C-alpha cells in the first residue's frame, strides 16, 4: 500500500471508477451481470448496460425483487451486482439479502450508493446511517466502504473473485485521493496510512480524509496519531485494531454512519475482548439524517476533522 503524494479532491467520480472496473471485469468474466432498480443512471451503471445489454436487468423500482432476482441469477451460476442507494440496498432488501442470498449460500454483490451525509438534499429518508449495522449482522456477509477511486479499482476484482454476499458502500461523486495508483489493497487487511504513538484514528469512507487532516493538526501540537483506513468493516482486521491499541493506547473511530453497530461498535467489540483501552467514536449520534449540502451535514453530524481532533485529545486525556 502506498499513500498518494497529495490528498486533493479527485477529478474522477467514484461511480465512474466503479463502472470502469466492472466493465473491465465483465470483459474477462461473462458471468458478471448487473441488476438495477431505476437508479441505473444515478449509480453510473449505464455504461455497463450499454456494453452488456444481455447481462443487465432493470427491475424498476423493486429493490427486494431485484435482490431476489440476483439470488436466482447466482443460483444459475452468474455473479450479479445489484445497485441502488445505500438505504434501499440495505433496509429495503434486508430479508431478501439475508434469506435468498446469504442464508441460501449464494453469491450476490450489493452496492449501496450515497451513504450517510453524501445523500445531501435527498434528506432523512435517503440518509443511511444504519446500512453497515444491518449488513454486518448478516452471517458470512462482508462489508466494504471505498475511500477513493484507487481502492475501487483494486477491490472490485477481489469482490468478483470472492464467493458470497458482499455489501459495498459507494459514494457516487468525488472523494479526496488517499492512495497512490500503484498501491496494493487487500480486502480484510486494514491500511495503516500513518504511523503514530499517542492515539490511533480508525476511519472508513470519507472519514479517512478527515482523519488524515486531524492527524496533521494533532502533529502541529506535538501529538502523534496513527491513522488506519478500516475499509473492510467485516471481517474486521482484528490484528490491526489490537496492534493499534498496543502501540498507542487510545483509539478514536470515525464513520459516516450511526455510532451504533457500525465501525465504532465493531472496533469496540475487539478492544473489550482483547485489550481494553480508552476509545471515542465519531459518527452520527443515533439521529436521523436531514437535508442540506454535504459540508453543512458534515458539521451538523460532527463528522469533520475538528471533531476527530477533539475526540483524539479527549481520549488521550483518559489514558
Amino acid at each position, binding site marked *: 500500500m502506498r499513500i498518494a503524494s497529495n490528498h486533493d479532491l479527485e477529478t474522477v467520480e467514484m461511480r465512474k471508477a466503479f463502472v470502469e472496473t466492472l466493465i473491465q471485469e465483465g470483459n474477462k468474466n461473462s458471468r458478471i451481470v448487473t441488476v438495477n432498480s431505476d*437508479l441505473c443512471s444515478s449509480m453510473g451503471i449505464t455504461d455497463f448496460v450499454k456494453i452488456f445489454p444481455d447481462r443487465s436487468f432493470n*427491475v424498476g423500482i423493486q429493490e427486494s425483487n431485484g435482490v431476489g432476482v440476483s439470488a436466482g441469477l447466482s443460483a444459475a451460476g452468474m455473479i450479479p451486482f445489484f445497485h441502488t442507494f445505500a438505504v434501499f440496498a440495505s433496509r429495503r432488501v434486508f430479508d431478501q439479502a439475508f434469506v435468498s442470498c446469504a442464508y441460501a449460500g449464494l453469491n450476490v454483490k450489493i452496492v449501496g450508493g450515497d451513504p450517510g451525509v453524501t445523500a445531501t438534499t435527498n434528506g432523512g429518508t435517503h440518509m443511511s446511517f444504519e446500512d453497515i449495522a444491518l449488513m454486518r449482522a448478516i452471517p458470512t456477509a462482508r462489508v466494504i466502504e471505498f475511500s477513493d477511486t484507487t481502492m475501487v479499482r483494486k477491490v472490485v476484482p477481489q469482490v468478483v473473485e470472492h464467493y458470497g454476499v458482499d455489501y459495498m458502500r459507494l459514494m457516487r461523486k468525488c472523494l479526496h485521493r488517499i492512495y497512490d495508483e500503484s498501491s496494493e489493497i487487500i480486502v480484510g487487511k486494514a491500511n495503516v496510512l500513518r504511523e503514530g504513538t499517542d492515539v490511533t484514528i480508525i476511519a472508513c469512507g470519507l472519514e479517512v480524509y478527515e482523519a488524515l487532516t486531524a492527524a496533521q493538526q494533532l502533529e502541529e501540537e506535538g501529538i502523534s496519531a496513527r491513522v488506519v483506513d478500516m475499509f473492510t468493516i467485516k471481517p474486521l482486521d482484528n490484528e490491526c485494531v489490537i496492534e493499534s491499541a498496543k502501540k498507542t493506547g487510545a483509539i478514536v473511530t470515525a464513520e459516516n454512519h450511526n455510532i451504533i453497530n457500525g465501525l465504532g461498535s465493531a472496533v469496540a467489540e475487539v478492544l473489550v475482548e482483547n485489550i481494553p483501552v480508552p476509545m471515542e467514536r465519531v459518527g452520527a449520534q443515533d439521529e436521523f439524517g436531514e*437535508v442540506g449540502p454535504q459540508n453543512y451535514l458534515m458539521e451538523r453530524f460532527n463528522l469533520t476533522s475538528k471533531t476527530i481532533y477533539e475526540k483524539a485529545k479527549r481520549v488521550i486525556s483518559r489514558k
Partner: protein
Amino acid sequence: MQNPNFEYMRRLSADIRVETVKAISKAGAGHIGGAVSIADVLAVLYGGAMNIRPSDPDWEHRDWLVLSKGHAGPGLYAALALTGYFPMDWLDTVNKPGTRLPSHCDMKRTPGIDMTTGSLGQGLSAAVGIALGNRINGIESYVYCIVGDGEINEGQIWEAAQTASHNKIDNLILFVDWNKKQLDGKLEDVNDPIDIAGKFEAFGFEAQTVKGYDVEEIYSAIERAKKVKGKPSVIVLDTLKGLGICFAENAVTCHFMAVDEKMEKEAIDVIEKRYEQGAYPGGESRK
C-alpha cells in the same frame, strides 16, 4: 364542494407550477418533472375538492392527502403555501439547512403534510391505514393518495391495493400520476407496468382514466369516485412528466434537474404566455 371554481383551480395550478420552479431554482436543483406533473390534481384538491382548514391542518374531520411519491414535495409545498398553510417565503428555503420543507414530504416538519414519504411504495399502505382508522372513528372524510407510475413497480403498492379492496374502503381515492417516465427513462423501457387501470380493476378498484392536466375532468372523476360504494377508487392521470415547464418538457430526462434563474424566468414566461393564449398548461400540441 357545491360550486367548483374551475378558473380558480386552473390559475392555482399555474401558480403551483410557477412557485415550484421558483423554489427549485432557489435550491439550485430538484425533482422538477414529477413535482409539476401533479400541479393540476393538487390545484383541484386544494382548490376546492378537499374539505380542509389550512389554519388548522390537523383538524380531525379533514380530508387527507398522502403524497406517496414524496420526491414531488416541492409541488405540494407550493400548493400548501398558496392555500395558506404557511407563509410563501418558506418556499425559498426548500432543501436549505434547517428547512421545514425538505425535498421529500415530512409530516414532522411541515404543516399540512399528512404522511412522511420518500421511500417509494410505502404511501399507499399508510393511506389504507388512515382510511381504516377514520372509518373506525366514524369520521366521514376522504383519504387521497398520489403514487407515481414508476412507483407502482413496487410490490407493496399491490399489497396495499389488495388490503384496500379486501376491506372495502370507499373513503380512499387513489391517483396514479401516469406521466410516462420514471427515473431511468420511459416506463416501457424500464419495467413496463402494462395496463395500469386494468391492473387496479383486477385488484378490485373502480378505475377511471382522465386527462391529468384538465381540472374539470379531474374534478368530475373525483365526484364519480365519491359515489362508488363498497370499494376503493383509482383515477389514472394521463399526463406528461415535466408538463408545463418548457425546459423540462423538452428534456430527455427531467426527473432531477439543475435549475438556474434564467431557466426559471423562461419557464414562468412560457406558463404565462400559454395561459393568456388558452394553451395552458402544455402548449397547443399537448392539449
